């Protein structure tokens, strides 16, 4: 949560401020001490900020977070000169992927005007060393030629080494401890290892299955997609056979993208080893590639 710049001051040097003439307690406003040590921060890939990807080419974008301060990653944005790519987000030090398969960049990369907000921040505790975050980008989206890609995580930096020790400890207590939950992206199991879906024939029907693995629950909050044509869909909980809608819904009414996501009215908890079935019918009358992504918070509390 952003820290307000101001705070109420009730004591000076441990003593309450003198009472007001009418006997009521006195308060003052002051600058919140932590503000000096927290800055917005953009993370650029190194050594090159952008890479050129020909069709079918894959590259690894590396992001080094130096030991100056913790990085609280909150949003993602990017530029693509000639079409989207598939992205696989990886925390190298924790050996942790942030999705079950690569996801379409249109579903998770916003712009400066409307960046993609992670369902919850991802905290990189640098300790005394540097941390490394990686994004595997692959030009695997059908029909996309050579494209120049630049992807930028955005968040804030806690310069903990300059903070008073107690403040630094409080930051770790409040933020690092929540790493039992972190942002996670779920794509259907039916997609291939590159995250590319099977093509849906014109006017045809199919179903995709989102499945949560056995190690965590997913609190789903946003529905995101990219496709080559319109479609209708339903979502159904497999274990209960319960639909999340009364009838077919048009794709543009139920799915958004990184810049304008569809927010669920209440977060949907997809428990571990449970499945969510998406039944789809093409409306475009042409072959249709449907890249669907569910964004949520992966919780490992049990």
């Amino acid at each position, binding site marked *: *949560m*952003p*820290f*307000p*710049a*101001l705070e109420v001051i009730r004591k000076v040097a441990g003593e309450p401020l003198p009472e007001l003439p009418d006997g009521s307690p006195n308060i003052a*406003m*002051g*600058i919140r001490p932590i*503000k*000096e040590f*927290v*800055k*917005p*921060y*953009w*993370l*650029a*890939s*190194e050594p090159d*900020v*952008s890479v050129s990807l020909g069709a079918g080419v894959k590259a690894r974008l590396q*992001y*080094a977070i*130096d030991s100056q301060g913790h990085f*609280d990653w*909150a*949003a993602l*944005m*990017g*530029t693509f000169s000639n079409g989207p790519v598939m992205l696989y987000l990886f925390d190298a030090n924790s050996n942790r992927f942030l999705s079950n398969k690569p996801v379409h960049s249109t579903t998770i990369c916003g*712009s*400066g*005007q*409307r*960046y993609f*907000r*992670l*369902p*919850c*921040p991802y905290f990189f505790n640098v300790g005394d060393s540097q941390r490394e975050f990686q994004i595997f980008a692959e030009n695997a989206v059908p029909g996309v030629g050579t494209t120049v890609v*630049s992807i*930028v995580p*955005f*968040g*804030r930096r806690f*310069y903990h080494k300059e903070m008073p020790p107690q403040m630094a400890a409080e930051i770790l207590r*409040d*933020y690092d401890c*929540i790493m039992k939950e972190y942002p996670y992206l779920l794509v259907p199991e039916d997609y291939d290892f590159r995250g590319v879906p099977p093509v849906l024939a014109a006017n045809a029907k199919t179903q995709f299955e989102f499945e949560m693995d056995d190690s965590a629950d997913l609190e789903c*909050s946003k529905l995101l997609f990219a496709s080559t044509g319109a479609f209708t869909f339903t979502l159904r909980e497999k274990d209960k056979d319960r639909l999340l809608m009364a009838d077919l819904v048009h794709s543009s009414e139920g799915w958004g993208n990184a810049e304008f996501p569809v*927010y669920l009215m209440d977060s949907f908890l997809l428990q571990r080893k449970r499945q969510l079935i998406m039944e789809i019918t093409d409306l475009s009358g042409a072959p249709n590639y449907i890249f669907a992504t569910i964004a949520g*918070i992966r919780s490992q509390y049990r």
Partner: protein
Amino acid sequence: MPLRWGEAVVADLQSAQEACVGHLAPFVSRPLVDAHGREILDPSGRPIVGVVPNPLKDSVTDFKIPPKGGPVTLAAQGSAGDEAELEFIIDSQGDFDWTHIVGVSTGGYTLHFVDPGEQRRLQNFPVHSGTVVGTGRRMFKLPEPYLFNVEDKERRIVCRVKNITASPNTIRLTLVGRRYYIRDAKPDIDVLIGDSIGRRWRTNTYFLVPKEVDKFGIPPTLAGNGSARRTFVMDNDADTSIMKLMAVSTGAFSFRIKEEDTNRELSNGTLHSDNGWGTADFPFFLSDSWFIERNKRLFVDITDLTGANNVIYLTMAGRRLELR
């Protein structure tokens, strides 16, 4: 427990506004009373609480202020009549809590707001309309509402506008906010309103523009593929908390931001303008408000990416914290 990001990105803005303004709920709970003003008790002896309309709501409405004299048409840049002074009058009927800026124009222009009542400028140099003037669909929200306490007289805010296009420019500019009709309100309601909007104390909205601009807010043209440094200078009067970054340019550019005193950069590489600057409609929200102390300077190093001349208007929006 920290708020989740989705809830929290504008929480700093909201906290500022809510702390000072508060949301006036349409209903409030209140103990029910009989004809003699005595509380009605339930069988267990506790007061029965009912829900009634908030008495403050009668005295508060949405309010829009166009300039006196209506829209203005400015001559092409460089000709006589390419600038004008717009005057927004807040009559003495009630306080005005200015929260948004909207407008329509046939081209770009620069603005310079002055509050004559407080002898206060709301920016260090004129700002480009594309960075602070939104539309009805996506209004530009001030980092903090600006309260005009009218007391027994009228208040006004003056906006000096200058056309920066080569053709005539018709400008309609409107200030949007809330009106508190204190004259209509009973004295106790007036006190309640005063408490809820923080009539006595506020920080205030402020726009920062680099010092390289001319007196009309127009920056030097950046040559194709050229580089330049833009310097944002904080004056000696107040600390500033920056919340949003906006830019209007004739082409893409790359940038890096650095604090002079700490020599600290806000990124580990050079970034595309699309990844760090928004517009009035869709501003770029910083992940945490950026606290800049008085007399400090910020450097924004920019490089043109278009290969052609590039005019880049940069604006930072935040709050002035005049607390020490």
